[in-house]
């Protein structure tokens, strides 16, 4: 009986509390207003940690499960690289490829039969697994497993949902979508989604420009996007103690190429000279600049 007697009282209290809290909640200017995303409200900044975990998961998938744990000493220290920027041989990542090192004892040697312990990438084909300790076998690109890279996409999607303010996620996903999976529309859509969350981000604009140039054959749109990206880079990155020079060089190089192709040699020359200031490859760039200067002089109309 006491339960029945207390029930109306409890319901009244609940109603009163709801009536008092609802307008307060509407007026609250906390992080809820920053994003209507329920995930953001519920998880706060911890979602960024989870997003980083899923981004690393994508990288682990790219390496077919052979990925260092927190206990491995030779963990790669640079940014994750699901091949957004293809690496030449001898890149630091490959220097860390054998993070497992030599087995320390016979138990460890034996245990390597049960988990992936060779450095491999998605999309590469390999002969059947060898015995541990054998010479690593080269990938055979001729037998590449086409489209296998799609397997990293779910983790990138989840990472982007959890932390939409991390532009690298969009860039990496877009790279795979457009370059290996031939899904240009999806790549562009994902990049635009990234731009909504990171307005004017130079990295995203650059990647969008690549789609316009390489897949849509729209050099004018690509130029506009890259020029905007360059402008954004100068306003955001230049003041940083360690600006993203790779992106800057890529922007200048691509713009120079584009202007050269469209016979705007003077503009191309400007970009190359600017690139020459930050690039270690000064000799080749100087030759390119000289060539552009000659063509620029030839293309100028003769003085009246």
């Amino acid at each position, binding site marked *: 009986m006491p339960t029945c007697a207390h029930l109306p009282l409890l319901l009244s209290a609940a109603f009163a509390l709801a009536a008092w809290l609802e307008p307060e909640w509407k007026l609250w200017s906390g992080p809820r207003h920053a994003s209507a995303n329920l995930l953001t409200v519920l998880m706060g900044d911890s979602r960024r940690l989870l997003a980083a975990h899923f981004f690393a998961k994508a990288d682990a998938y790219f390496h077919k499960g052979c990925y260092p744990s927190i206990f491995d000493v030779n963990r790669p220290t640079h940014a994750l690289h699901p091949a957004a920027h293809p690496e030449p041989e001898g890149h630091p990542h490959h220097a860390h490829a054998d993070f497992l090192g030599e087995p320390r004892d016979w138990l460890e040697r034996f245990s390597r039969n*049960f988990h992936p312990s060779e450095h491999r990438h998605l999309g590469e084909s390999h002969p059947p*697994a060898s015995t541990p300790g054998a010479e690593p076998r080269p990938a055979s690109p001729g037998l590449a497993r086409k489209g296998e890279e799609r397997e990293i996409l*779910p983790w990138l999607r989840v990472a982007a949902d959890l932390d939409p303010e991390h532009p690298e996620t969009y860039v990496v996903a877009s790279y795979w979508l457009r370059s290996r999976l031939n899904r240009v529309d999806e790549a562009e859509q994902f990049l635009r989604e990234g731009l909504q969350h990171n307005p004017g981000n130079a990295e995203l604009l650059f990647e969008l420009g690549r789609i316009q140039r390489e897949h849509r054959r729209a050099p004018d749109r690509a130029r506009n996007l890259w020029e905007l990206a360059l402008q954004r880079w100068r306003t955001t990155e230049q003041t940083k103690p360690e600006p993203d020079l790779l992106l800057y060089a890529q922007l200048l190089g691509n713009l120079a190429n584009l202007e050269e192709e469209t016979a705007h040699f003077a503009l191309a020359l400007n970009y190359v000279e600017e690139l020459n200031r930050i690039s270690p490859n000064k000799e080749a760039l100087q030759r390119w600049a000289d060539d552009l200067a000659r063509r620029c002089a030839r293309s100028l109309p003769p003085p009246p």
Partner: protein
Amino acid sequence: MSPAPTCLPAVSTLLEIPARLARWRGWGNTQAIGSIVLLEMRRRKDFYVLFILTALITLVLGAMNFFNEARIVRYLKEICLLLIWISSLVIAITTTARQIPAEREQRTVFPLLAKPVTRTELLLGKFWGCWQVAGLTLLTFYGFFALVSGAREHQWPLAAYGQALVLHWAMLGIVIAMTLLGSVVFAAPSSTNTIAFLVSAGILMLGRHLNHVALQLNEPLQTLVYAAYYLLPHLEWFDIRNRVIHDWGLVPWWAWSSALLYAAVYTAVFLVGAAAWFRRKTVL
């Protein structure tokens, strides 16, 4: 008179082993007790709930669309296998942990031991029953897993799945024997459950790295941790999920067989320990 060759009795004894096993009353008792555990599994809801949960989560995740790529499958395999591992551990540990305490609580242990069934036979029967339950659970779960992944990627690497299933089952054999030992040593099933879960999860997560951790420690901790690395059963060897998910092919058969032998040895060690403890223990 020359003495009879000494090897003849030995050979005849060896030849008699199968017949002796068949005549061994204990095997009949063990099987009978094991079948009761199986019956119990059919009546309880644990298995059905976990299977439906696993199937539902897998199917809902499988229905998700990522960039219009219909052939993405590895994330689904990973989540499904993770759920299978969690479910199988839950079923194996909880089923095993309650066996002996339940018999004691309901006082059915007295008529059982008066049959006459020896204490060792009772333990072996419980182990055999729980291990069969684990095997049947795994067959159902892996069947579902093979169907889901096969339907999605149009590949049927049944040998790899078979290897994974048998290794998983062998690992559960160790866990069940260890839990049985715990259920004899500890008073309540809840404490056995907790300790068995913690030990199993700890070994699965850290077992592979214990030697690396040991090398970063100072003496005498280093020797202690390294000794633990050698002594603990390496349950993580039996977890070949990453190989299955990322299509690494088959585990070399010699390694696979050696792992099974390793599991058999550890299972036997735990069972002998449990039997020795149970023989000395007062039932009430």
